[in-house]
């Protein structure tokens, strides 16, 4: 079956990517050597991945991608990354009580362990941050395995394809098409004539922010202001803040660290939700481009307003008095810090927490859920619908209302003074509706599927599970709160959520386009 796509080309190029993914396993290998644990796990994993890469590459040694092959390649690349990500988990956890390690006791245990590992890996690469890890601690898992979990998010943040374009010449040839399919947001912004240079610039900015961030965190530790933020923790959080990931090697996330650390994390989470192309302009001295950008303004405004409202709610007692993050009622600093942290974390889909917001009252929870719908900016590492889409949807709706009263008026939709193409508006409308439909239908499925195995979800749990996975956010409410786990879901639900994370990261269109062209056979 041809599917109207030259799948061999896509798969062949995939082999190249897999081959290079093996190199990234060096990072956890170094950690394994440093701590003297799980060294063989990563050596074997590297061998398997490299072998797999060389084998798959032989399907088509000289791949030539058209638009449809590019879509297929991007879709497959993310599945392949997720599958490869499971290898260290499965090997390291074999024969232990790890929930993501390979279990061979029974067929049920085997499939469940596979589903769990895939869930954790997909959640990592798509920077979702939802976890099925039963117990997050260095007692249960080695430092190296936890670091690999963090690293998957860092690799997925700016995009594994963007990284490939930046460093692999054979991918750069069709780079623009590939990047278009992967980049968050409605359109690709080319910063330089050569796409590989654009990809490199974006990765360099991303890398630069990460390095500065790790240095600040570790600096605080050395200065004695963050006793628990040792080098391992600093790097681990450095890997998951800028990609808006949310994984933490600590069971109680950033709540485990001092208030100073929390204040430092907030601005970096906010930075992660900004279009990275804007930083490129700022570095070139064009600060105006950023300040005048409509999406940036809307993002800053949304963060400020929602944070202010939440801070007031917390100050007036929206959180239970005895809580992990400390009391907030009547405590201005803590109210503001908790509000700013949770909003910076959830609005752009990071998923860290400094308080168990699943315990907050309904007002505060619905506000957080509202923030989850907003999403980061186009071209950022954040998930969700993206601010620019909401802006355009809002403007298009306002135009509809105006033109229904004045049917003859021609009114283009403008953003930052530029006219938005009508085709782009149609695409954005379709995306937004598709996103909402997938979110709604999945929430229903998750609820029914859970009660099939005798687990009754609350409405907030089922909707937040759906929203947190398609929006690549991570934590939800109820049992899925920031310190909870997705472990209790049946395998079928986990598969659906793996799918949601996948389509959410690739923004639905590439994935569905591959399906549609397969079904049409053209």
């Amino acid at each position, binding site marked *: 079956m041809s599917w109207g796509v030259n799948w061999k080309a896509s798969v062949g190029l995939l082999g190249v990517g897999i081959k290079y993914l093996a190199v990234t396993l060096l990072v956890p290998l170094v950690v394994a050597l440093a701590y003297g644990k799980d060294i063989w796990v990563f050596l074997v994993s590297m061998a398997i991945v490299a072998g797999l890469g060389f084998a798959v590459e032989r399907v088509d040694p000289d791949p030539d991608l058209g638009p449809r092959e590019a879509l297929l390649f991007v879709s497959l690349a993310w599945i392949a990354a997720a599958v490869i990500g499971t290898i260290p988990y499965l090997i390291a956890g074999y024969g232990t009580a790890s929930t993501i390690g390979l279990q061979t006791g029974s067929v049920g245990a085997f499939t469940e362990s596979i589903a769990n590992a895939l869930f954790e890996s997909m959640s990592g690469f798509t920077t979702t941050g939802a976890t099925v890890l039963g117990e997050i601690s260095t007692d249960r898992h080695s430092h190296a395995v936890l670091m690999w979990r963090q690293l998957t998010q860092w690799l997925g943040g700016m995009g594994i394809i963007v990284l490939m374009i930046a460093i692999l010449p054979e991918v750069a040839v069709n780079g623009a098409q590939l990047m278009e399919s992967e980049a968050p947001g409605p359109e690709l912004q080319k910063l330089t004539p050569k796409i590989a240079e654009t990809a490199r610039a974006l990765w360099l900015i991303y890398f630069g922010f990460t390095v500065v961030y790790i240095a600040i965190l570790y600096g605080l530790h050395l200065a004695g202001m963050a006793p628990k933020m040792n080098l391992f923790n600093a790097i681990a959080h450095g890997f998951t803040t800028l990609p808006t990931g949310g994984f933490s090697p600590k069971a109680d996330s950033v709540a485990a660290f001092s208030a100073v650390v929390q204040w430092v994390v907030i601005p970096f989470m906010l930075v992660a939700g900004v279009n990275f192309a804007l930083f490129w302009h700022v570095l070139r001295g064009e600060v105006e481009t950023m300040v005048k950008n409509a999406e940036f303004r809307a993002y800053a405004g949304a963060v400020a307003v929602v944070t202010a409202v939440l801070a007031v709610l917390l100050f007036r007692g929206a959180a239970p008095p005895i809580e992990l993050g400390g009391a907030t009622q009547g405590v201005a600093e803590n109210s503001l810090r908790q509000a700013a942290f949770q909003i910076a974390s959830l609005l752009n889909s990071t998923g860290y927490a400094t308080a168990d917001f699943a315990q907050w009252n309904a007002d505060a929870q619905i506000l957080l859920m509202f923030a989850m719908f907003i999403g980061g900016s186009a071209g950022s590492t954040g998930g969700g619908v993206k601010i620019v889409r909401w802006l355009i949807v809002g403007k298009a709706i306002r135009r509809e209302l105006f033109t229904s009263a*004045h049917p*003859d*008026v*021609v*009114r*283009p939709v403008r953003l930052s003074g530029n*006219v938005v193409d009508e085709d782009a508006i149609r695409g954005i409308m379709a995306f937004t509706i598709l996103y909402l439909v997938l979110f709604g239908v999945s929430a229903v499925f998750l609820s029914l599927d859970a009660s099939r195995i005798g687990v009754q979800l609350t409405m907030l749990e089922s909707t937040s599970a759906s929203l947190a996975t398609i929006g690549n956010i991570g934590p939800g409410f109820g049992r899925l709160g920031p310190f909870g786990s997705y472990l209790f879901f049946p395998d079928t639900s986990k598969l659906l959520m793996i799918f949601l994370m996948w389509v959410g990261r690739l923004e639905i269109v590439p994935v569905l386009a591959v399906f549609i062209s397969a079904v049409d056979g053209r």
Partner: protein
Amino acid sequence: MYVVVIGAGEVGTSMAASLASDHEVVVVDVDPDRAEQLKYELDVLTIAGDGTSSEIQSAADVDRADMVIACTDDDQTNLVACGAAKTLGDGFTIARVKSTEFLRTWQGSEGAFGVDFMVCTDLLTAENIVRVIGLPAAIDVDPFAGGLVQMAEFEIGEGSPVAGQTVSEADRFESLTFVGLFRDGEMTIPRGDTDIVVGDRAVVVGSPESVQSFATDIAPEATPDDADEIVVVGGSEIGYQTARLLEERDFTPRLIERDADRARWLAENLPDTVVMEHDPTDTEFLSREHVDEADIVVTALGSDEKNLLISVLAKRLGVDRVIAVVDSPDYVTVFEEIGIDIAINPRTVTAAEITRFTYESVAENIAVLENDQAEVLELELTEGCGLTGRPISDIVAESDARFVIGAITRNHQLVTPRGDTVLQAGDHVILLVESDSVGQIASMA
């Protein structure tokens, strides 16, 4: 002067006609019949052929021409003709263009395309329309220094807020100068303490924006403000430029265009204009959108017949002022006779602009006021002339000529003249001079 005119359309013909009496004129046109016909109509030499080819240009002796005027209907032809003429000789080249893009390129680097002076027909017409719209109270308005400076003459009417004030009280605008005051037909040079009384005619020189604001001051009733409804009918280049210039002056016009693609283009390029896509001759549509309540309607459709129809329709619906673009010069009087307030002909406007350049005078631009009592002149100062190197107050003290400097432009920037301003070579000076002193001033420049 030896002048070569390329293109014998309406602009070219009227240029040739006005120049033929005093100058040697050669007209080149691609159409042999047209060339043949013109030979008998005007006292000029005609050559049939492609005005851009060097062969034809050599035949027209372009190499010894003092001036080459390219005014065919096609922008590119005119630019190429000027460029070709520059390779043959060093005559002053004038090109007529429609596209404002070419004008912008040329303004960015003068001499581009081998063009020494560029006249943009549609922009010129639109500027005219906007002047008429913006300054209905003015008796006379003239642009200077390529539109950077405006001269306007107003009559101080009964009930004008300015009446009874002194000149320094009335002139509260940074870039505006009172240059002359006519009372009972007698001109006086205004000083700060001169009183303004009802019936006076004031002549001011300044930036177009300040002149507009001043008009609002002295005639608030007649001068439109941003609350006034202006409807432009027809999204032709003139219609587009008119709307664009109105936007620049803080108006929010409405524009009606029939063609969907053009309407879309207009809407994208005119952020502050409400663009409507509909047939403007549909009266039901006009009344539904309350066009009848508009204060000003400008018709800028492609054909005179349609403009006439819309103008009459607008007048019948009760629009206060209707301004029509009329393509054929013969119809201008017809339009005005049937009650259209103002009819503007783009070709006349263009020909007038080009004609200004053919004056053999130090003054680039002249407006004559009140039965020749005074003139407003634009002078380009040359190195070592009698006006440079000294503060203006010294020039005024030493000279017995009666004049007022209204505005200065330096490198395309407006400079407001003060007593201590020192004039430089290359400055364009716009000044009002009493007729008796014109010769004296001209000899100093």
